């Protein structure tokens, strides 16, 4: 069995306007030492489904069902106290904006040491020593002095390093990084991703990286899960998906990646329309109102029937949710020539 196995995860929010279906039947697997990239637009359910692993929806208006097996334990079945003991110790989270994710009134060191002390019976002094060690490990200069700084005295990149130190101080098996580089400068982004990869090798942890940047996915992830309207629409090994995408939404994501190094004449094609409402999702395939290729499917199938997650033509672990019969042909002849081929097949 996999280290992390999510099966049929459903997260609904009851609101006054109705039920918001943030995640609908999501399933994926992740091994230790591997990275899963979850990609999708804002509001596609990426963060919501990942927060469910930590049980962060408990005590809210959310209805969560399905199975989340971490090391064989179903995280949705255990009680609040048990899941609390796992938070930060077995599953840790790195958040998008480290300035707002850190408490402005406590020193960085205080907040990191707190994460250590809550799960380890150690003295303040030991926790402080461990914190300095972690700060040094994530590349903060003069950690013995910076430990007493407040978050606002850190630069953006340093704050994210400190957040990573906080997440990894208990050596968790699973790290969920929720858009860890979105709020950072491009130059700092690369450093943070490198750091995450180094630490992953060192601690042999599994990482879920949530992003809408396919560049991050290409660099970091072993597997990719493309989400749309709360569902997985394409899932498989990163190389497979980036080179042989079979779902028009994935094509759209690839078309909207700007290419600044190669062919600068290549068009930047945005996906038309807006992400669907999760309150009243479209019938059939949720992507059909925005899909440029739906006329390739006979009849009204796209509008009426939700396609199953079926193995892709290439076979293997690659699955997709689409009615188009010959997706690789359509991609090769209609989509690829229009866009900058950012992810070419390795010869």
């Amino acid at each position, binding site marked *: 069995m996999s280290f992390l196995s999510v099966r049929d995860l459903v997260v609904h929010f009851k609101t006054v306007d109705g039920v918001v279906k943030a995640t609908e039947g999501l399933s994926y697997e992740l091994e230790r030492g591997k990275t899963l990239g979850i990609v999708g637009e804002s509001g596609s359910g990426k963060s919501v489904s990942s927060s469910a692993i930590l049980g*962060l929806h408990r005590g809210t208006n959310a209805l969560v069902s399905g199975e989340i097996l971490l090391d064989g334990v179903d995280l949705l079945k255990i009680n609040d106290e048990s899941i609390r003991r796992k938070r930060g110790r077995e599953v840790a989270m790195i*958040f998008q904006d480290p300035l707002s994710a850190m*408490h402005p*009134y406590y020193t960085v060191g205080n907040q990191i040491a707190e*994460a250590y002390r*809550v*799960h380890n019976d150690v003295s303040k002094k030991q926790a402080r020593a461990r914190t300095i060690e972690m700060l040094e490990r994530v590349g903060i200069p003069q950690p013995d002095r910076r430990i007493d700084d407040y978050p606002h005295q850190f630069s953006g990149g340093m704050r994210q390093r400190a*957040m990573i130190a906080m997440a990894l101080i208990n050596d968790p098996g699973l790290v969920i990084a929720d858009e860890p580089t979105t709020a950072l400068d491009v130059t700092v982004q690369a450093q943070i991703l490198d750091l995450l990869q180094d630490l992953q090798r060192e601690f042999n942890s599994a990482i879920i990286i949530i992003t809408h940047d396919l560049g991050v996915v290409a660099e970091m992830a072993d597997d990719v899960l493309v989400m749309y309207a709360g569902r997985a629409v394409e899932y498989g090994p990163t190389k497979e998906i980036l080179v042989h995408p079979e779902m028009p939404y994935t094509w759209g994501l690839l078309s909207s990646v700007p290419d600044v190094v190669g062919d600068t004449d290549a068009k930047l094609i945005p996906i038309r329309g807006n992400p669907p409402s999760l309150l009243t999702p479209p019938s059939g395939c949720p992507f059909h109102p925005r899909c440029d290729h739906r006329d390739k499917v006979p009849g009204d199938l796209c509008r009426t029937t939700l396609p199953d997650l079926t193995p892709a033509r290439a076979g293997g672990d690659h699955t997709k949710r689409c009615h188009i019969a010959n997706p690789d042909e359509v991609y090769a002849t209609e989509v690829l020539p229009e866009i900058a081929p950012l992810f070419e097949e390795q010869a």
Partner: protein
Amino acid sequence: MFAYTVRRVFVGIIMLIAMSMVTFVLFFASPIDPAQFACGKNCSLEQRAQVRKGLGYDKPVWEQWKNFAVGVAKGRDYPEDKSLRKSAPNLVAHCAAPCLGYSNVNIATVTSEFKTRIPVSFSLAIMAFILWIVGGVGLGVIAALTKGSIIDRGLVGISLIFFAFPTFFVGLFLLKFLAIKWGFFPVPNYISIADGGVWNWMVNLVLPGLTLALFYMAGYVRMSRAFVLESMSEDYLRTARAKGLPGRKILFKHTMRAALTPLVTMAGLDLAGLLGGAIITERVFNYNGLGKLAVDSITVYDLPTIVGLVLLLGSFVIVANIVVDILYAFIDPRVRVG
């Protein structure tokens, strides 16, 4: 920080000087002649001139203000007029520096009058402050934690009712039922700690303190509720939960710290305002505090007491402002300079 404090104190002193000037000007701009008022109905022109001279109201306004300012610095003798002092030396009153004036109505210096009144108003303010902070913040936090439930709505609603009722009504209600009819409390009558001990002092303050506290509490219930809810939706609280902190630690260390900081400013300024006396409450419970003194001195046109009160209350607010700002720098690390 030190330079900042000195600058603030300096600005505060200038403000106090300006306030005293404005009070003098306003006093004499009023159509009522204080000499006529002191002299009474059947008062001849000569008598009135005599009274005016005795009270020191015969000089131009600016000169009166100058004498007042000198008195604050050096002290002065009353009456102001030298010939009067010579003719009746047994009636000369000395007012030592810092002299805020001599009240002919109270037949005492303003400072000595303040000395007997301040403990009353301070006791009342402190009692009210403790009750309203404990009650207001406590209930506000409870309301926030039970957001949307009957408890939440009930607390917010009841606090609004007390806010809407005028103080004299709540005060009289408490006095009539809790003290007179049911006898849960003695009929309040200020007893200093020196005279009656801490217990008597406190028991006598509960009802007037509660009257004031109920009024202030409404605002504090709503505001602490809003601040706690706002704090609970912050990203850093999600971080705290994701770290695996237990609920009480999240509440007391992370939520409350952020939620209650803005309340310090408000509480400091409200307390400063209250230290200057609660006019209605002091009247209802017949407490001889600064608030009652203010009303009395205005009704009898007692200029020295009015000016003294304006300066005293003004300095409370100015000092409270400075203290709150300095305190804030200690509470919120982002405000610290350098």
